[in-house]
């Protein structure tokens, strides 16, 4: 850039935002000393920047729960207490509930669950998460069928995970249909609270064929755990 070259708007902004290297910065600084119009433009840009900064004071956002720990930890506590009291009726479930408690309150990283009645809880719309969960469900069902063992799996979806059951956005509708067709032990349950929240926001929710609803995912999990089901979070 020569001294008399016009400084573009982009470069003026880069100058006031500290985006230029030392040589470019010095060039424009020199030029602005000799060019009152450029100096005025830079001043006005700085003033504009400050106006924007002052127009949005840092406000305290409403505090909302991001971790499902509060409510779901209650489920965990219920499971552990229930197992201890023999409420779940089968001692074989105790390890699973302990795992659940660890997961929900202590942040376990890896886990394995055993059982022949399993609730799979999906709360994420992440395609990879759903794909992995369906892969695992498929594998386990196939293995059980090969061994002649009955296996019930219930997939419960809430929050963003509801997407997997929504006709317009479901990433793998054909896989769910195949699961239902091939394995009678598979049930799909959507959280009504999530559906209601979406509808309040004007979203039209149409569920895939065969998807049932429960009053809430939490209620359904509690119901299943009391019935002796194991819980797995996808």
């Amino acid at each position, binding site marked *: 850039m020569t001294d008399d070259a016009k400084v*573009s*708007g*982009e470069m*003026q*902004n*880069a100058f006031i*935002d500290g*985006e230029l290297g030392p040589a470019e910065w010095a060039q424009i600084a020199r030029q602005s000393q000799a060019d009152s119009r450029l100096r005025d433009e830079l001043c*006005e*840009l700085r*003033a*504009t*920047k400050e*106006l*924007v*900064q*002052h*127009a*949005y*004071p*840092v*406000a*305290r*956002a*409403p*505090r*909302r729960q*991001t*971790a499902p720990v509060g409510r779901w930890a209650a489920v965990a506590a219920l499971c552990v207490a229930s197992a201890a009291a023999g409420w779940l009726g089968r001692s074989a479930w105790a390890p699973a509930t302990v795992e659940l408690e660890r*997961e929900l309150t202590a*942040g*376990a*990283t*890896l*886990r*394995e*669950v*055993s*059982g*022949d009645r*399993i609730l799979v809880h999906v*709360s*994420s719309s*992440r395609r990879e*998460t759903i794909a*992995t969960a369906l892969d*695992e469900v498929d*594998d*386990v069902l196939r*293995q*059980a069928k090969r061994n002649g*063992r009955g*296996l019930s799996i219930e997939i419960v979806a809430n*929050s*963003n995970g509801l997407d997997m059951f929504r006709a317009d956005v479901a990433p793998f509708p054909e896989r769910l249909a195949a699961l239902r067709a091939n394995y009678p032990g598979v049930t799909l349950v959507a959280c009504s609270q999530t559906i209601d929240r979406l509808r309040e926001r*004007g*979203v039209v929710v149409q569920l895939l064929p065969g998807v049932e609803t429960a009053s809430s995912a939490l209620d359904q999990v509690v119901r299943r755990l009391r019935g002796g089901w194991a819980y*797995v*979070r*996808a």
Partner: protein
Amino acid sequence: MRLPFTRLFRPSACLRGAIEAQRDPLYRLAFAWCHDRALADDLVQETLLRALDRAEQLRETDRLKGWLCSILANALRDHYRRQRGFENIDDLDETVLADQATPEIASESAELAARVRAEVARLPVGQRMVVTLVDLQGFTYAEVSEALSVPIGTVMSRLCRARGALKARLLDAAPDFARTEGSGRKVRIVK
């Protein structure tokens, strides 16, 4: 029977705390983008939940702010897409949302901050995102480019147009500026 379910569950308490600590700055930014406090709150909540859900994707924690802003930008774009059926991000970024043109009445007597917010709201979405990321979040152009997935040249041109428009409307007080510079398509959002 042993089931092969394995999953990395939660982000560490440290990362969770760092993500949650961004709630207020994100809320400020989200409000500057949509000028609707309830929507800003929802977008931030959605952003934090998505971030916590995908924490394992964050490789370098010093890029947390940019990563969160990227999620927030996508959450807002998703919101507008759902409302208006935008299929192309470029279309959305160049769009002026007509019903956001006057989130507050920018009369002669209105306080300056309200006037500034009203003018920011008149900018096309893409320009609004860029200027607020630079001015409110203190992002470098490279960070904006990464957060919004647009080239640096686009960041610079949008910033130039945004500041030019704000300068003209706020400092030069040219009443007919909107008619001469209003190149963005106007769309009325139906809530």
